[in-house]
């Protein structure tokens, strides 16, 4: 018994006064001094300061909160949970500076159905972000930047912006459920069509554009009253299930005279089944957007608590295409949280044919750059921490429709930054591919990767580092 422990030993000096044992000299009355105090620090893993302030916010607002940007959920396995294992004794590396590595990327030619599959010089293009969410200057800059390096952009759901069409050598025209500004002429002037079923940031819900951004031009393009909160429909108006969609795809092929590929974009939820169904309905390209994908505005709970990580979605999507014999016939594009050429290379190795960048391209344009500090402050944020695209008060002119702010988005400078960023990313991809002994970035595969965490291995099937076995189920 613990009580017995104290019974037999006698100090060779008088017992210390209780006051000194308890550090009582000079301490706050009634508080044990020096004892690590849960009273001061808290420490509940459930009721963190963030969780408590969330309750306070809900209790005051009586509704969920809305914001832009992307997920703040920290528990995702990410691209950083994977590492490359370049050529050593079992294979030969290519000379990084001297030997070439092909980055040409063909999308939509696999079925042999369309006259003009997309040929991109690099495996990266600019994601679907609408005029409305982004300023016209930002859209135009993205178009020119992408054109300079031989890749493409996508309209997003706000209809075709003439500046963007003119700036983009190749442009994907998006057909969202809301069909804003849908126009046969625009369909025929596009280099590809994209049917949107969902997006990674908020799968299962439609677009959201708050009234602050529904400017006269946006309202005219979307046939909306100025200044209303545009909460787009999520179900397509004229098809419900896969069988209907197959007919819709045929209609779009007829409307565009079998010239251009048809994409289908989905948020990553059940890609193993969803991608197989998308392949079955007859589209040429499937875009899978992981939960790390960005958005201009969304109820925050959807950003943080819906969808699955991009790395896991790519594997499931590729296996789905393999299983139904559609790899090679249907191209796979991955998106969601891609920050660098390293992330791109990992997507390609996991099984993507190309990737699409949204947030990253906005950051290249100037999002979160340390300028106009007072304006960040007005938003209650600072450069590097801003996620206020929903407010329409973007300090750098990227995600706003306010003329004084959009003027800060210099088209020429933005285009050049985007072009340099895409160039640098592509160099990063080829550097890794060559180190892995690949003369074509599309030859990167699962064997070039190892997982640094159980989760990453379990989610992707990539072998664990060292032990060289995938987490077994």
């Amino acid at each position, binding site marked *: 018994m613990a009580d017995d422990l104290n019974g037999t030993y006698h100090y060779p000096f008088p017992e210390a006064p209780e006051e000194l044992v308890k550090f009582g000299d000079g301490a706050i009355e009634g508080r044990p001094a020096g004892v690590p105090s849960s009273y001061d620090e808290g420490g509940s893993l459930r009721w963190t300061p963030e969780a408590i302030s969330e309750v306070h916010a809900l209790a005051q607002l009586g509704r969920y*909160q809305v914001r832009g940007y992307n997920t703040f959920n920290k528990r995702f396995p990410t691209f950083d949970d994977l590492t490359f294992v370049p050529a050593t004794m079992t294979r030969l590396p290519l000379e990084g500076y001297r030997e070439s590595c092909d980055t040409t990327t063909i999308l939509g030619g696999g079925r042999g159905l369309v006259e003009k599959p997309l040929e991109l010089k690099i495996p990266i293009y600019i994601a679907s972000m609408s005029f409305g969410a982004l300023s016209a200057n930002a859209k135009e800059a993205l178009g020119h930047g992408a054109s300079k390096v031989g890749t493409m952009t996508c309209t997003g759901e706000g209809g075709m912006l003439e500046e963007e069409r003119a700036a983009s050598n190749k442009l994907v025209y998006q057909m969202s459920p809301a*069909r804003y500004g849908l126009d*046969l002429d625009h369909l025929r002037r596009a280099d590809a069509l994209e049917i949107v079923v969902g997006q990674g940031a908020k799968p299962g819900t439609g677009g959201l554009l*708050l009234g602050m951004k529904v400017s006269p031009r946006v309202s005219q393009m*979307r046939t909306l009253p100025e200044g209303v*909160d545009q909460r787009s429909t999520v179900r397509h*108006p004229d098809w419900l299930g896969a069988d209907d969609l197959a007919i819709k795809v045929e209609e779009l092929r007829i*409307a565009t005279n079998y010239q251009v590929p048809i994409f289908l974009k989905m948020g990553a939820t059940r890609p193993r089944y969803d991608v197989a169904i998308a392949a079955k309905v007859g589209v040429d390209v499937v875009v899978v957007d992981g939960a790390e994908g960005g958005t201009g505005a969304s109820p*925050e709970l959807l950003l943080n608590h819906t969808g699955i990580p991009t790395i896991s979605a790519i594997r499931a999507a590729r296996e789905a295409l393999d299983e139904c014999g559609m790899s090679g016939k249907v191209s796979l594009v991955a998106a969601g949280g891609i920050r660098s050429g390293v992330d791109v290379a990992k997507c390609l190795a996991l099984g993507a044919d190309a990737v699409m960048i949204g947030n990253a391209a906005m950051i290249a344009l100037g999002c979160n750059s340390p300028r106009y500090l007072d304006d960040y402050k007005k938003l209650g944020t600072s450069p590097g921490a801003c996620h206020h695209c929903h407010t329409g008060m973007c300090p750098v002119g990227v995600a706003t429709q306010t003329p004084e702010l959009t003027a800060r988005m210099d088209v020429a400078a933005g285009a050049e930054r985007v072009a340099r960023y895409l160039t640098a990313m592509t160099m990063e991809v080829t550097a890794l591919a060559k180190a892995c002994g690949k003369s074509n970035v599309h030859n990167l595969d699962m064997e070039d990767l190892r997982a640094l965490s159980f989760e990453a291995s379990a989610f992707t099937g990539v072998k664990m580092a060292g032990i060289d076995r995938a987490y077994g189920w």
Partner: protein
Amino acid sequence: MSSRYVIEVGNRHIKDVNEEIQAAAKAHHSLLVRNTLSRHNLGIGLPKGVDVAFEGSVGYYCGGLNTGAIVTVEDDAGWGTGEGMDAGHITIGGYAGMSAGAAMRGGTIHVRGDAGPRIGVAMKGGNIIVEGKIGSQAGFMAHAGKIIALGGAGASCADALWQGEVWVAGEIESLGVDAVVKEPTAEQVAEVDAILEPLGLVDSARNWRRIVSGQRLWYFESRDANAWLMI
């Protein structure tokens, strides 16, 4: 009528049928499409200045993305008739399936029989006239334009409208979210009568219900905008 160019559908590939329709539309003013077998995707993206009649019934998306043609379907039509159309006039002799006029931007769709659910869903302009009853969720999120039902309307009529209007002369099973019935003014009735007049459908005895948005959902998210600045 006798100089109509005739196109046979049957079991031909629908791509070939549409190519023939497009080519014929360049050379002839009047086309008759026969043996339609309720096939889908007949007459997609038709040009202005041609008159195309479909014998029998058609499947999905007939007259979809129309840019100005006059289209007549003898009997019934499947889903999405005239979806995304920009201009022109489509007449369905019988019943129109779900989502006729979905996301249309202009022109007129005239259904002589009843129409299925979600007619005029997400429409951005133009007019839809249904002589019979319209199905549930008619005009769901219609941005602009009018849906005019001479018969009744199904459940959730005029759900979540923007600036579209739904006019119903008969019984309404139930109204959709944020839909309100407004007494039409004499000028508004005259406007509707002007749409019905060329179709010979004016009847001054009608008891119109004009349904518009209550606008409660229009500012649903941004009403707490100031609070979000601090997120």
